[in-house]
């Protein structure tokens, strides 16, 4: 189904209730409303119970001094937990590490994902083999893949470490971040490629051929035709992957446990709860991460004009 026709159906459907509301609701329409609410209710209740309620509770906890080791010393302290986090070098360092990992891994994935998508789209033979093998990193459990990378870079165990003069990159901050990015890129490039491939298949073949007849080079065809037509698919893929990369946890936890200053904000939040047992500070970190993710989403959706998937007002 083409996007335009779906948008048209939806906007027609949106107008329908408005006109209907002006008259008195018929018995059938009211029954339909009730059934709609009834069918959605269980899903809505679960989603609210697991996200909205805990976040509201986290806001409340973040305003308290609350250490699990000192359960009797719980006290309302206003915004001072936020002050403590925002004035701590640990927070800013973790945020910097997270942003570096996010920016580099998403940029590399975009390039590699585009190459892989073009390969899957254009290759003359072996298309199914490539497509099948690309699904392996997607399917593998992140923790298992992270162990594979960790052992590969462990001196005197790993083939990669042996290849690079028995080096131990995981014990140096910069190199360890490089390995984390490598693990992240390997795992998620196929996902990026599949989203881009779906966008590629929407680029009309005729347009490409016409440009070729007019003498456009392969690069010109790619930058002037393919890329502009794929813009919505690229932005959606970038939005998904950026938010996902910003939440990075599994790979870092296995590869370095956040040691040598390689922890992301998610690692910081986890450590704060399970090592420091500090619910107040931990909740303040939770809320700050939530705000960061909200900012990223808003920047993408407003700034780049990404049609958020599922919304009907897509500017395509």
């Amino acid at each position, binding site marked *: 189904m083409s996007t335009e026709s779906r948008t048209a159906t939806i906007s027609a459907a949106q107008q329908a209730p408005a006109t209907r509301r002006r008259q008195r609701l018929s018995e059938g329409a009211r029954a339909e409303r009730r059934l709609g609410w009834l069918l959605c209710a269980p899903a809505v209740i679960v989603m609210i119970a697991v996200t909205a309620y*805990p976040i509201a509770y986290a806001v409340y906890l973040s305003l308290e001094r609350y250490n699990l080791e000192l359960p009797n010393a719980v006290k309302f302290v206003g915004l001072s937990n936020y002050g403590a986090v925002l004035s701590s070098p640990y927070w800013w360092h973790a945020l910097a590490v997270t942003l570096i990992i996010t920016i580099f891994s998403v940029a590399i994935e975009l390039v590699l994902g585009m190459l892989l998508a073009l390969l899957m789209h254009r290759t003359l033979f072996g298309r199914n083999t490539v497509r099948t093998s690309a699904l392996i990193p997607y399917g593998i459990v992140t923790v298992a893949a992270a162990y594979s990378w960790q052992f590969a870079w462990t001196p005197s165990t790993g083939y990669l470490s042996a290849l690079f003069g028995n080096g131990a990159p995981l014990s140096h901050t910069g190199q360890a971040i490089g390995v984390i990015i490598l693990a992240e890129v390997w795992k998620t490039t196929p996902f990026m490629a599949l*989203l881009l491939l779906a966008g590629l298949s929407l680029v009309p073949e005729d347009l490409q051929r016409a440009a070729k007849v007019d003498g456009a080079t392969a690069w010109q065809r790619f930058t002037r035709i393919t890329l502009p037509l794929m813009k919505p698919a690229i932005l959606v893929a970038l939005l998904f992957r950026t938010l996902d990369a910003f939440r990075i946890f599994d790979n870092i936890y296995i590869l370095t446990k956040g040691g040598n200053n390689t922890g992301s904000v998610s690692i910081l939040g986890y450590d704060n709860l399970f090592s420091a047992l500090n619910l107040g500070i931990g909740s303040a970190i939770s809320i700050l991460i939530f705000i960061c993710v909200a900012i990223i989403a808003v920047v993408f959706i407003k700034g780049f004009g990404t049609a958020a998937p599922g919304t009907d007002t897509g500017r395509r």
Partner: protein
Amino acid sequence: MARPDTGKRIGWAAANTIAVVLTLIPVLWIVSLSFKTPAAITDASFWPSQWTWSNYSGILQTSQFIEPLLNSIGIGLIATVIAVLLASMAAYAVARLEFPGKQVLIGMALLIAMFPAISLVTPMFSIERALGLFNTWPGLIIPYVAFGLPLGIYILSAFFREIPWELEKAAKMDGATPFQAFTKVIAPLAAPGMVTTAILVFLFCWNEFLFAISFTSTIGARTAPAALAFFSGSSQFTSPTGPIAAAAVVITIPIIIFVLFFQRRIVAGLTSGAVKG
């Protein structure tokens, strides 16, 4: 189209080979490690010089791995069934019914798809302890259902919009009861979407790590990926590298086979929500 020349064919073949090799190497490496003897683990060669099953027999004899494996299967299946059921109901309403608040539901599902899981860990930890859900199956099943729902609602409402619902009416005209119209006509058409959703939700549950290590404290409810991170080897004197590799292979290989078997469905499901909107 003209027959492509040899140079082009070699170029594509090279590109194909590079792509396939890069995706396979880390998998082959962990498989190779899992077959190495404890002495050979530290020889840093890519292939084992001697092959042994001892890592596998070791982990399959310890409850430290078997119980988490059963937890993973049980929690994954229950969460998947509940999520697909609730998502089907909501998606049917989104695709077929007119009711105020539909956009709110879609927006809410989108918000949850973008939600940073770590933000929930601290408050949920506190809530689960208060409710007695900490370190229990429901303590993981409930958040897994919540995070599986947005995916399910998107994929299923896209599928349900494509179903020719007039067939139901036609079947009734031909004398089918409403129950027959549903089971013989609508259910077979809806099944592929539900299977796709179930596969993706199960993969999510199987892969999930942050909640699994945060909301469990013993092997009573810990899932396999979380247990891997707490692995100490079959005896305390052996390095856990071999057993971890073997455990990683055990939890990975069935999923890879599963993914390859259902690859068309998975690709369709992953891209339907994101690109077609």
